[in-house]
């Protein structure tokens, strides 16, 4: 069998081209990886001619060459994801919320690098990597900016929860920035989860326990010392079930919803005639499954209304 050594390797070239096919072009790197892995997993036996044409040894079946290609896909995904995260941290995450939640203090210069390292650690962990898929998709998209300002203007449940209950005085832009930060920190909560503990469908999205989060918080905080523990807690606590944990901050609840929404985003999806819009459909389904996924049903109601009013 051949090893994946460089981009001149046919397997690496194949993986690279696979992730750049028009069908996947609009997806974030991690979602591309999920798609590519699914095709390999579901069609392995039929792909033997493909493996052969790549010069792979298929004498022992399809699993070994598929595993080799999977590794190449993952390596290529990591490379693409690093570019995405760099772009995200430099242009889409300003940490402008920092003074509002850290006693007026500006974000330290190394804060973004620490966040980058935290995300990189999550990407290297199987469960956290799965959680990162939805988080990155949400953070890279405009979904957060789309919903926070209208929710602010409505001055209803979400506004009241943030300004009066959580007592945060942030502008909609800062709140969007904070939400993006929360969804990016969220996968770190799964860093200490043993792979295989949850069902495949829940990997990276099953609610965690408060006691568990309290235990892992020091470890996470030590990796990102520039961030106040309260900020990191907002990200980690977005994995708590609501209303199971009544004290979950509103910002964490928004982060949980956005990360979940990011997981289902499909930029190239075409809305059939007779079908409702993607956001409206998704929020409506989640309103009914709010308790199942541990999401705030009143927030989902409000987001559903915003989606319906705007035709999203």
């Amino acid at each position, binding site marked *: 069998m051949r090893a994946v050594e460089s981009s001149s390797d*046919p397997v690496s*070239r*194949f993986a690279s*081209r*696979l992730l750049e*096919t028009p*069908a*996947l072009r609009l*997806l974030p790197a991690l*979602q591309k990886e*999920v*798609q*590519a892995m*699914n*095709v390999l997993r579901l*069609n392995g036996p*039929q*792909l033997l*001619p*493909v493996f052969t*044409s*790549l010069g792979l040894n298929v004498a022992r079946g399809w699993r070994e060459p598929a595993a080799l290609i999977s590794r190449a896909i993952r390596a290529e995904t990591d490379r693409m994801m690093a570019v995405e995260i760099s772009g995200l941290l430099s242009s889409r995450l300003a940490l402008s919320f920092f003074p509002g939640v850290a006693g007026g203090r500006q974000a330290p210069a190394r804060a973004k690098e620490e966040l980058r390292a935290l995300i990189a650690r999550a990407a290297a962990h199987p469960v956290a990597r799965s959680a990162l898929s*939805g988080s990155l998709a949400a953070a890279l998209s405009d979904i957060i900016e789309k919903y926070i300002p209208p929710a602010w203007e409505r001055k209803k449940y979400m506004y009241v929860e943030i300004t009066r209950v959580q007592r945060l005085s942030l502008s909609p832009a800062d709140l969007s920035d904070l939400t993006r930060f929360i969804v990016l920190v969220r996968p770190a909560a799964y860093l200490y989860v043993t792979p295989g503990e949850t069902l*495949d*469908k*829940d*990997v990276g*999205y099953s609610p965690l326990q408060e006691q568990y989060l309290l235990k892992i918080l020091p470890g996470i905080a030590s990796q990102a010392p520039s961030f106040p523990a309260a900020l990191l807690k907002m990200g980690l606590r977005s994995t708590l079930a609501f209303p199971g944990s009544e004290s979950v901050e509103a910002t964490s609840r928004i982060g949980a919803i956005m990360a*979940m929404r990011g*997981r*289902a*985003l*499909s*930029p*190239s*999806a075409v*809305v*059939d*005639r*007779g*079908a*409702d*819009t*993607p956001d*409206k*459909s*998704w929020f*409506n*389904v*989640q309103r*009914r*499954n709010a308790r*199942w996924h541990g999401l705030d049903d009143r927030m989902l109601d409000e987001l559903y209304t915003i989606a319906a009013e705007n035709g999203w």
Partner: protein
Amino acid sequence: MRKVAEFLETVVVVAIILVLVHTFLDDYSILAGWSVRARSWIIWIGLGFDIFFTIEFLTRFYLALSNGQGTRYFFRERGWIDFLASIPLLLLNSLPHALALLAGAGLVSGLGSFLNVLKVIKAVRIARILRLLRVVKLFRGIRYARSPMAQGHVSPITTIAVSILVLWTLGASVMEGVGIIPGIEGPFSEGQAARAAAIAQVGRTPSVLVQRAAAVAALDATILVVRPQGGAVVWSRYAPAYYTEYFLPGDFGYLLSGGVEVFYDQRPQSVSAAREGLVFFVAVVLTVLAFLFVYAPRFAMQISDPIHVMKRGMSESDYNLEVRIPAEHADDDVFELAALYNSVYLPLKDRLGNEGQGPAPALKINDLRDLADKT
């Protein structure tokens, strides 16, 4: 092979659209008094279309028979429409017209040769109406790519509506022709017969006949030519060249009474028939357009679209869009089912499968094969 078939289907659709234009112009040319030259062209083009559709029908029927699908093609796939809109039209309409055109180039010289043809043309003129059946053939060529169910539903309904319109009108015309129901031509023909008899009353002597013909023709502007049977013309309203320029074979009426032949101008009746034809043509086209652009979208919106969305949601793990339920139709059975789909099925699907949360499965196995070839 498939591309060739698609190309031929496109050619047929284009031909149907063109033949509809031709059908309109056929009547309009009479109504507008177009020249003989232009109307001759319309007759030849009509013959071309009828030959084309006859070949199309025979080809389809032959292929269907070769595959043991003859009955299915003729009855279930509306081969009978193809048949009615081709062979009878060719044999009863365009071919006789074309033959008459060839035979009756000059009135005086050609009188004897096309008299019988004239009668045939008059008898089968009503068959022209079958051409409107071709409108429903359009449904086979035009595909609602996004709603095959709507097409499958609207197409037979349109066929039924247009067929009833056309076949009833055809039947009524036949009944009129055989005298079961009174027609507009009856009194007119009776008047012509009476005047022909009045002319023939004086005998066949040319000198007497010409005076009598002139006297009667002064009272009836439709009388064109009078002559003893098989003899030379004794009276004519116009010079022979005028007939050549302004009259097609179908524009003449002919009566034989007491050994005297009388030709009369049938253009006023043709104009009246053309007017009726145009009204009927517009009625059929409007019926089809109404089904196509009013009923079909309604059917799609209320029936096939919600079913299509539910089908995708149930068969594709990554398709989770809800059915949009219009408030005014919320009580329809389909939308009540859609409400259950939205409120029960999709949430259950969301709980049960992680695939439902992921992006749509954009990547196909063939993408990998193509990539391997390039790598």
